[in-house]
Each structure stands twice: as structure tokens, then as C-alpha cells.
């Protein structure tokens, strides 16, 4: 019962694991490029949660710092990604990731 009542490290880790799973799932299955990118964001945020949780339970600030940087990076990545996706949309008139496979084998 104690596991359920008091929030501990495991809970954070579980959530982050779920986030990771969802993120990967989105990346793997969604057609829309935007959603795929959102999946990537989920993955990064899963890492964030881990860092913060560990930082809390280990003591020390590295985790927090790391999380901050990850947020920044994620923002930058989103910017670049959107630029590329817009370009794709210009050329292909769609953002369907799965349809873009002119180069193969």
C-alpha cells in the first residue's frame, strides 16, 4: 500500500518509461510529420523527467541543469524540424512521412 500512497522515485521512472514508449510509438506509427516530431518531444521529455527525479533523489544540481538544456535543445530542434517539414510540404504538398520514400534500397 505504501507504494501507492507515497509518491517515490519509481513512480517518476514509470511515468517517464510510459512517455518514452508513447513517444516511440508515435514516431513509429503516425503518418503526420508533426505528430512524429511530437513523439520525439515526448522522448526528450521522458528523459527530462528521469533527470529531474534522479536529481531530486540523488541530490546535486546536474540533473536539473541537464533538464534545462534538454528543453532548450528540444525547442531548437522543433524549430529546425518545422522548417524542414514546411519545405517538404511545399515540395510534396503533404506532410505524410510514410509517403516520402523516393530513395530506397
Amino acid at each position, binding site marked *: 500500500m505504501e507504494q501507492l500512497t507515497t509518491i517515490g522515485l519509481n513512480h517518476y521512472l514509470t511515468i517517464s518509461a510510459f512517455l518514452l514508449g508513447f513517444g516511440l510509438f508515435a514516431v513509429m506509427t503516425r503518418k503526420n510529420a508533426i505528430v512524429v516530431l511530437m513523439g520525439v518531444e515526448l522522448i526528450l521529455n521522458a528523459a527530462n523527467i528521469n533527470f529531474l527525479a534522479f536529481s531530486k533523489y540523488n541530490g546535486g544540481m546536474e540533473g536539473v541543469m541537464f533538464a534545462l538544456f534538454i528543453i532548450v535543445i528540444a525547442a531548437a530542434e522543433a524549430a529546425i524540424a518545422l522548417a*524542414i517539414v514546411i519545405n517538404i510540404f511545399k515540395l510534396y504538398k503533404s506532410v505524410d512521412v510514410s509517403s516520402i520514400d523516393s530513395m530506397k534500397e
Partner: protein
Amino acid sequence: MFELPSGAEIQGIIASLKASVGFFIPEIYLSVLFMLLIVIDLVAKGRKNNLLSITTLLGLAGSTVFIYQQHALPAGELFFGMYVLDEFALFFKYFFVLSAILAVVVTMADEQFDREVKSMGEYYALIVAMVIGMIMMASSADLLMIFLSMELVSFTGYLLAGYFKRNPRSSEAALKYLVYGAVSSGLMVYGFSLIYGITAQTNIIKISLELAAHGSDSLVMILATLLVLAGFGYKIGAVPFHFWSPDVYEGSPTPVTAYLSVASKAAGFALLMRFFYVAIPHGALPPEDKLGMDWLSLLMIFSVASMIYGNVVALWQKNVKRLLAYSSIAHAGYLLLGILVMDQFGTQATLFYLLSYFIMNFGAFYVVILISNKTGSENLDDYRGLGKKMPLAGAALTVFLISLVGLPPTVGFIGKLMIFSALLTKGSLYIWIALVGIMTSVISLYYYMLIPLNMYLRESKQPDEKVMNPGMAPQIILAILMILTLYFGLFFTPLSDFAKYSSAMFGITLH
């Protein structure tokens, strides 16, 4: 939970920051160059490509001076262990700057840019930014720095790959590169978080000490290392993390392909070596028996797979760029062989192989560009009869390919020689791996020779015997590269000594 630092501490922090900056000059210089390029792009008017490119060349060349000055400095940590300076890092600093210079040179020769894009401003800026990122990759000693520098390299990489905005293939390459890279780096950072959770450290040296001291839960450790490996593997483009590379290499502008296939691959290797040598103790080494995980046998599998897969799939390629892409996968396998040895000789061999790969691969791509300038195609069939039309280019390409196969008297042969020598000094298991390497190099001969076969043995379809002149400057550069390939194939002592000197890595002493 935190108490504010006292004034004295802050003074100390500032002092050490000041001290560290002295060790950081090349990076700063390059950042300045980066901004300068952007400014020039903004202020200058009209066709400013040459201005930009010349500036980039001079700037990069200038950076070598600062890098050279760092030889005088003692090896050590800076920025609170975020960053290290050692011979290993210096080697890669030279390596990246030189490859950037070559990339610029190659770009200047490529006429496709004139067709595809108006402005080259961001291009050179991005090249320089990528150099900075890669240099930091090679020097970073902290998970955070590793992550940041890798992302810097990746982002610039995405942009460069998609630089031909109106070219669907280029954009497709960018998208694939982006998605794959984002996922891998995400996994990697998740792995970082786990490592941080286990050891409460982000500095790789501290991590190794921590692991040596307390050991670790192997399950989590495996998971973490695997995820990290995913990130690194994606950078070096080894099987099974290679899937992005053929498409990206084919779609990107050829200079970018060359640049990625040499420089960012090398950066990945630098990171791989530093991280695994230093941070994760190898399970097979005597003292840390059950710590960490057996990443060595893992890399063994990856390298064998890369050699076989890359060489074998390349047999079927019709597009020369794609063919070289697969061959670069195979070469990642050969480089991994050197890392497996995990001693000083092995490191030396790996570094030497990187140098040789740098020369010959850039040369090959350079010729590809020159040819596609004239024929507008990278198709194998369009290479028919080119040997007569472009004698020098044909000869040079043949030399580079021979070197890629690893036949004397070329530098590629010496690279393979050193790698295999390093392997043979370690017991029998490694000999079998060396056998695989040998076999696959024989296979590689077949598809490499397909190119001279088309150039010399077959007559071109349209029988116009006019000689195509790729221009004076490119030919001179080509000749220089070719002569270097041959010269270092016969007198390779300087390169090898340099590699030897550079195999000293901070935080671990290899034997």
C-alpha cells in the same frame, strides 16, 4: 535544499572559468568566424559566394594556428570537467578543420550549387558551426557537453543535408536524417539519464570511478549503454544504426555527403572511443569484471555486420554516391575493428585509418563531383568511356578506389595493414575477425572496380571523343590528393607518428 555559494567560492569559480577560457581559444575563434560569415552574408551584396568561401577557407586555415598553439598546453580538464584538452582531442581538431577546408574546396568545385540555390551564406556558416560542434564532441568529457555538441552537429547536419530547398531528394534526405537523428539522440539522452541515475555523476571520469567503486545494477546499465550506443552508432553509421545513411548520402549535396561521411563519422568515433574507453569499464578487463557491460563483443558484432552488410549491399548499387555510402558503412566496420583492440596500437591504427579514409574518400567524392559537373549524372552507366575523356580524373579516381580497397602502394593499404597488425597482436579470436575483414575487402574490390571498369573498359554510348576539361584548379587539387594517397602509401611514417602521438587520451592510459 541548496545553499547559495559563498563569495570565495564564486571568486574561485570565476578564476577557473578565466583559466579555462585560455584553453578554449580555437572554439571561440571559430564561433567568431561563424558570426562573421553570417554578418558578411547580410551586409555583402551581389554574388558573394567567392567572398564567403575564401573567407571560410582563410578562417579555417587560421584556426589551425590556434590549434597548433594548444600543443604547448598541458592536457587537462577545463570548465569543471565539462571539457578536456588532450592530444586525442587535438588530433580531431586538426582533422575536422582540414575536412571542413576540403568540404569548402569541394563545394567551390560543385556547379550544382549554382543551379540549385541563389545564396551560399548560411551554407559556409553551417559548415563552420558543424566544425565547432564536432570539435566539442571530440573534447567533451561530460554527458551534458556530449549531448549539446552532438545536437549542434546534428542540427547543422540536417540543414546541410536539406540545403537544396527546391530539390525533393535533398529535402527528403533532410527529413529522414532529422527523424532518425532526433529519435537516436532522444534515446541517447534517455540513456544518459539512466546513467546519471545510477551514478549521480555526469562527468565520464567520475562515472567510471563511481562504477569502479560501487558497481552497478547490470540490467539498467545494459539498457543505458544500449541506448547511448544507439546515439553514437547513428553518428558513425555502423550496422544496425546505418539505415539513414544511404538515403541521406544519396540525397544530400555531394560536398555535404563527403563532409558527413568523413567528418561527422569521425566525430562519432571520437566520441565513441572517449566515452567507452573512459566511462564504461569494459567487462573483459581484469579488475572491473562484472561492472559495466560487455560492449566490446557488441561492437565486435556491429563491426562484422557492418563490413559484411556494407560491402555486400554495395555490389548492387548503380548510383556512385549511394555506392560510396554503402562503402562508408563498410569502412565504419573496419574502423570499429581498430577500436576493438582497445589498446594504444589499436587507437593509433584507428586514427591512422581515419586519416587515410579522409584523404581517399574526399578524393573519390571530389572526382564524382567533377564528373557530375560535366555529365550531370552520378549513374554508373554514364561513366562509360570517361577514362579517355577525363584522363586525370579517371586515373585519380582509380587510385582512390584502389586505396579504398586497400591495395598497395596506397595509404588505404597501410591503414588496413595497421588495423590488422593491431588485431593479430591479440590472440586468435581477433584473427578470425581479421579474416572477415580480409574477405570483405576482396568483395569490395568487385564493386569498386565497377567504376574503372565503366570508365576504361567500356566505350561511351555517345561516341564524342572530345576531352572534358574539369578546369585547372580542381585538377591541381585532384593531383595533390592523388599524390598524397600514393606518397603516404609508401612513406607513411609521419602520419603514423602523428596518430601515435595523438592516441593519448585524458583520463585513461592505454597499453
